[in-house]
């Protein structure tokens, strides 16, 4: 049974269950601190009340890290990371975390216009999950996941599903659909175009 709780710095000691997954990024301490300080409302976790934390450290089943950015009509929430422990997958927990984020940022004091996130173009599972939640692809960011060896992209003509990202968005009511489009897979841009 999950309860949605604020993330505390001390939770960083209890994330093995989630962060031992090699596809889950382990950020430096400073990165987590930045999110706790600047966006305290938007960093939270799902906690399993069926696990006794005195006996078992692994009672955090997932967490969400997000931030707000942009100005005026571009004022929005960006999902930096959402991740779920393997034992709690396929039960819509990631969706619950996203819905909770929406509830928080679609109201005071945030009142954002839309929520966005980046997902690898070949991550069909994640794309489907977000589309089910009402997100749509806004544009394709060429070379978003390029490594230093790959270098910065110098053309929008070359696509690579493993290196490009879809910028997916969901409009909030106050946005009136201004910031989203039905399917932006063919809209391409460079990584620097997605800075706010």
């Amino acid at each position, binding site marked *: 049974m*999950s309860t949605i709780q604020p993330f*505390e710095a001390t939770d960083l000691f209890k994330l093995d269950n989630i962060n031992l997954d090699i596809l889950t990024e*382990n950020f430096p301490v400073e990165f987590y*601190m930045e999110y706790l*300080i600047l966006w305290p409302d938007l960093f939270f976790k799902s906690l399993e009340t*069926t696990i006794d934390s005195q006996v078992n450290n692994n009672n955090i089943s997932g967490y969400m890290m997000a931030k707000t950015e942009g100005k005026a009509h571009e004022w929005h929430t960006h999902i930096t990371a959402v991740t779920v422990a393997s034992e709690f997958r396929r039960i819509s927990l990631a969706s619950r975390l996203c819905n909770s984020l929406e509830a928080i940022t679609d109201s005071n004091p945030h009142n954002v216009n839309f929520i966005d996130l980046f997902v690898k173009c070949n991550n069909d*599972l994640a794309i489907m999950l977000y589309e089910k939640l009402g997100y749509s692809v806004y544009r394709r960011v060429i070379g978003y996941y390029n490594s230093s060896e790959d270098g910065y992209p110098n053309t929008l003509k070359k696509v690579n599903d493993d290196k490009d990202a879809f910028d997916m968005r969901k409009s909030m009511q106050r946005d009136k659909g201004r910031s989203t489009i039905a399917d932006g897979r063919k809209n391409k841009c460079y990584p620097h175009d997605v800075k706010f």
Partner: protein
Amino acid sequence: MSDKIEAEIFELIKKSNFRLCNERIGQLRRQYPKSSYFEVLETYIKYKQSPTKFDYEKLLGEKFGINGKLITSDLKALDLLHTFFIELERYPESLNVYERAIFKYPTFELASAWFDKSLNDSNFMHMAKASLQMVKYSNENSEYSSYLQNRDFNFWYGISIAALFKFQPHRITEQEKRILPTLAYKTISNLKPFNSHEELIVFCTICEQLFPNDRAKASEIVQEIFPTLEKSVNLTLKNFIVHNASIIEDNQLLFNSCQIILKSIDDYDVIKHFLRSGKALGKSKQELGQLILSLVGDTRNYRLSFLEGDLIYDSKITDDSLKFYLEKFHNKACSSIDINNYKNHLDEATIKSTFNLFSSEDVIHDANTFKLNINDSTSSELYMKHKESLNSKAITDYSSNSVFILDLVQKLLLKEDPSLEDILLSLTLLENYQVKDEHNFDTKLWIIVSYMHLGCIPIAYSNYLDLKIKNVQNDIIDHLIYSRMSTLFPQKQHDYFINFRESIRNLYEGSLNRLPQFIRIAFERKAYSKILGMIEFRDKLERSSMKWLKEIEMLQLAGISNDKRGPLIKKMQESWRNIEITGNITFSDNRDWSSFNCNINKKELPNIMRSMQVSETAIMINIIKELMIDAVSTNSTNGKIDELILSTFNNDMSKILEMNLTEDEIWSFNIIFDLYKNNGENLTKLLSAETIPLSNRTMWNLSHGYLMKVGTLKTLDNIKRIKDPVTKSNIKKQLQDLRGSADDLYKSYSNKIKQAHENLASNDETNKLLQDLGFVPLQLSRITETILMVQKTVRNL
């Protein structure tokens, strides 16, 4: 110009060039005779020059001590005095200089500097006092005036008081326990209406924490939060209102609050309160079920709420509720965890029969029933039933087939004394499985543990690298490969050691040192709700068992490799002061064992993990040992050592040593203790004391025993205090004999592994098992080559 000379002075102090140092400070004192900073610096130099001859009272105490005659407002002088007093371990004086200064020369800058130092020293009493001064003296010209107002520093005070009561109650007198909560409450209350959620959270924290279960305060909390529920969603405020509405037993308000919250957040805690308050209001279970469905939808929490509802209304779970839940979740990995939580209210037969209503074609379904002990098949039968699913799953997905493999493995490895055959068979099963379920870290962890137990550190390490452990994870999981590092594989050129060193640098010397700065920024950015957690995080990292374990291993490695101990001892002493200053001299054991999912008792690890058993007492004993070595080597005295010996052993040294150290560690400690306490009177006898002969050892214990002996003998060989030629010759001979035996010892171990491998290969039962599972025998060459690598490292020391 004076800055340059000042910088030069500190460099000269580092190099102990005091002649030139005194010349330079003399020059500055003549140039700036009224400078209190240079006056303090001159005194500091005197101390650094002859710490044992330094007359504290005359040179410093009478001037700047608690009742000192002098008070300075010079920030640089105060900063140096702070450093000076801390080096002298006079912790109250280090912040007292600021407190005295602010009353004579009150300025915002001084108060802010005091706050910073107090935060750095984790002294929340001083933080609170400093923040009140910041309230008093903040003005529009201060550096923060563009984004912080006078009002904000009141909240800094509130959080400091909350931190004081939560983390340092030992600093509070009885009178302060009565007065401070009221003062904090009034200070914050007077600032209503609150401008933000964060301010409201400070108010609620003060009320709840400083006035626990106080109905009036609980009522105030509820009144402040309830109006915000319709307009905003805040998880911290959610917790406050639900908790405090329960305290005042206002069921209608609790019910209404939960209903509003559940519209936005699907939260099981809230659902439970919703059910309880709904029942108290006379609503039926069915009505509440419908309401929950309309609020959160058909989710896991919704379906589980039926079980909870049954317990609240009827104190027993119905078959229908269980069926309703399992209908959707029988083949989801969470169900074994969820059902396990309710097992005291369910009988096994019912769970089994309900699970059996649903298809068992899914590997997750069978894994769940297996974990709940209601599956009649064996783990190997279940693996064979589901192994084909490994071929069709996504590479990045984990398979629940690991549950069955781990059952087989744990039966072998969790025995009282697993044999070489047991470990080799386990590795066969694990390595074969890992090829098919590459990303599964459950099985990977057991591979690492098994190789560590065999003493095959390089292979264990290469598996560890696959997990990409970094940052805070180094604190919670590095114990798997770095416990007793110096006596397992002290190869300084290998990536194993380089990574060890890097992890210390990045986390404990890098990130940890930056945390006070982040906490300060949290205050400035008004992230009040996160500050207590950040403070606690910093504290746990500062006192981390893993951090101290690594410091000890570095020192032990220095002994084994004949490296300089001095800088490492100095570093350890600085780390010690960082925890001593808080008044809490205990370690924080952040090491995680729960990822093994088999109820490991960390105070008594199974034999297969014995090399990782390093208790907090063991860490303390090793600290004492290293301090004793330093005292004996440098012919110095250290009053702290005797204090630590008394508090750690409490006059029962043999028992405490036996309970916490390995045989070899006890042997080593007794020798060093004898040198320290008795001038080595019993050295000859202790050197020849019996431990299990190395020739009878295998696995990690071989390297550990060998290297503990080498390290101790080399340390003794370098100690000038040992003058007796017979003893010195004995030490050298023992070292020589030890080195001479290294090759034979490891060759013998390697032969035992080969024999165990042959025994397994000729065992019909084993062969049948491997055949049934579709597994191939383990390649032995990798293991024997690794043992050879360890042998070469060890032999060269």
